[in-house]
């Protein structure tokens, strides 16, 4: 029993450290890749090839003044970044990173919690992420932040539905809500081949879920001066920032788990396959950000409700029909 608790704790700490490091280096990767796409050089000053840039940024953010504007709702103001970061990190508790490995004579499953209703938990916590956005927007006592928070709420609510519907088709196809069993069900053929429409809908909604371009309306720099985190600085801002990048990793990991066969792939290198598939998604996120312009707000809403939701519903009905008949 005690050994189990220690195992879970160690796995959790390692996972959090890896995710923080990955989030830091994703900012670096994003800056370099976007720079190359825009014919620039990108950060290359700090350390060899600029590889120490995220560390320099981290030190800068840590040593900044911990500033709190006048008139904020103090408790909510400090709570909001924690909610964002917590919900972003939580998704990884459920995701199977690999199979079972043997370490020091002890079988260790590369997954922190094998929950039977994994998909439901994932959906629940990705919906909770909006609380970080809306509470920070409201607590900041700033109209821009409030608008950003409201946009975030409306956007996440409307994109949660097609996302849930597209994930339901996977639950139907696999016949289970358990993420590990879903991964095992894709040993022969990935679900992206049998449910391509769900995959496309999921990827589009994933952009909206993570507030990334072209759906980065809650944090629009140009219109809202960075939206919900305008009034945050230093490490509080960094927490939002890390949460955003961990969120990208989370939706990439979910897409990998549900559509791209998780850690399955040729050769006996499960974790490497998993990381490669995530890296592919992360690159796609950066690539899209470098290409597409932000949607207008009404376009965003009408796209979500008039295009994605009907298609996702139809897709779900068709999938259910083919599975039942």
């Amino acid at each position, binding site marked *: 029993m005690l050994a189990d608790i220690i195992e879970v704790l160690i796995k959790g700490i390692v996972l959090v450290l890896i995710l923080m490091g990955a989030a830091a280096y994703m900012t670096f990767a994003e800056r370099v890749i976007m720079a*190359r*796409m825009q*014919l*620039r*050089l990108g950060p290359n000053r700090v350390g060899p090839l600029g590889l120490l840039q995220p560390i320099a940024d981290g030190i800068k953010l840590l040593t900044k003044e911990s500033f709190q504007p006048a008139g904020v709702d103090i408790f909510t103001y400090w709570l909001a970044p924690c909610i964002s970061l917590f919900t972003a990190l939580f998704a990884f508790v459920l995701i199977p990173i690999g199979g079972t490995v043997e370490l020091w004579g002890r079988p260790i499953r590369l997954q922190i919690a094998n929950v039977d209703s994994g998909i439901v938990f994932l959906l629940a916590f990705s919906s909770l992420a909006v609380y970080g956005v809306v509470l920070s927007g409201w607590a900041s006592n700033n109209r821009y932040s409030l608008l950003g928070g409201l946009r975030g709420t409306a956007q996440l609510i409307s994109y949660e539905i097609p996302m849930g519907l597209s994930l339901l088709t996977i639950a139907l196809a696999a016949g289970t809500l358990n993420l590990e069993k879903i991964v095992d069900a894709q040993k022969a053929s990935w679900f992206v081949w049998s449910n391509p429409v769900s995959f496309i809908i999921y990827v589009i909604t994933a952009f909206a879920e993570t507030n990334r371009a072209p759906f980065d309306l809650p944090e629009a720099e140009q219109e809202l001066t960075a939206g919900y985190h305008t009034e945050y600085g230093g490490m509080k801002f960094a927490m939002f920032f890390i949460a955003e990048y961990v969120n990208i990793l989370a939706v990439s990991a979910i897409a990998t788990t549900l559509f791209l066969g998780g850690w399955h792939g040729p050769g006996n290198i499960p974790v490497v396959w998993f990381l490669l598939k995530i890296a592919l998604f992360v690159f796609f996120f950066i690539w*899209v950000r470098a*290409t*597409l312009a932000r949607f207008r707000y009404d376009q965003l809403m009408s796209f979500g409700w008039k295009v994605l939701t009907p298609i996702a519903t139809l897709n779900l009905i068709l999938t259910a029909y083919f599975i039942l008949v």
Partner: protein
Amino acid sequence: MKTIKQVFAYLKGLWIVLKYSFKRPITIRYPEEKRILPQRSRGRHYLTKWEDGAERCVGCELCAIVCPSQAIYVKPAENTPEEMHSHGERYAADFQINMLRCIFCGYCEEACPTGAIVLGNDFNLVSDNRQSLIYTKDMLTEKTPGDSGRDPKREI
């Protein structure tokens, strides 16, 4: 049909961006690599000399008058037969250009009747204090004729 076209346009845009990521960046690592500027690009000023070492500037103050940002200060003085600084009647006893005010428009170079003031290619004018960015006559005057890159034999 229109929707398909729009989706196709998005994919095309993605493809173009991906293609550009394999091109050579057009920016450079500045202090290590330096771009060779066009010969007529306008940088810091020089006060040129004639071939015989006399100053070209005759202290007419036309550059100070034409200067849109009033960056130039000229204090003219009369040449005496014993001490001829320039070929004219007057010369610039003091000549200062405030590089913080200068907008590098080149009007002074155009206005100068003797071709005394010219703009060189050096754009790397940095300092951590204001005082040192007011260039005095010593700093502006070329040490030997032709230092600025301008032919000392040229009339104007």
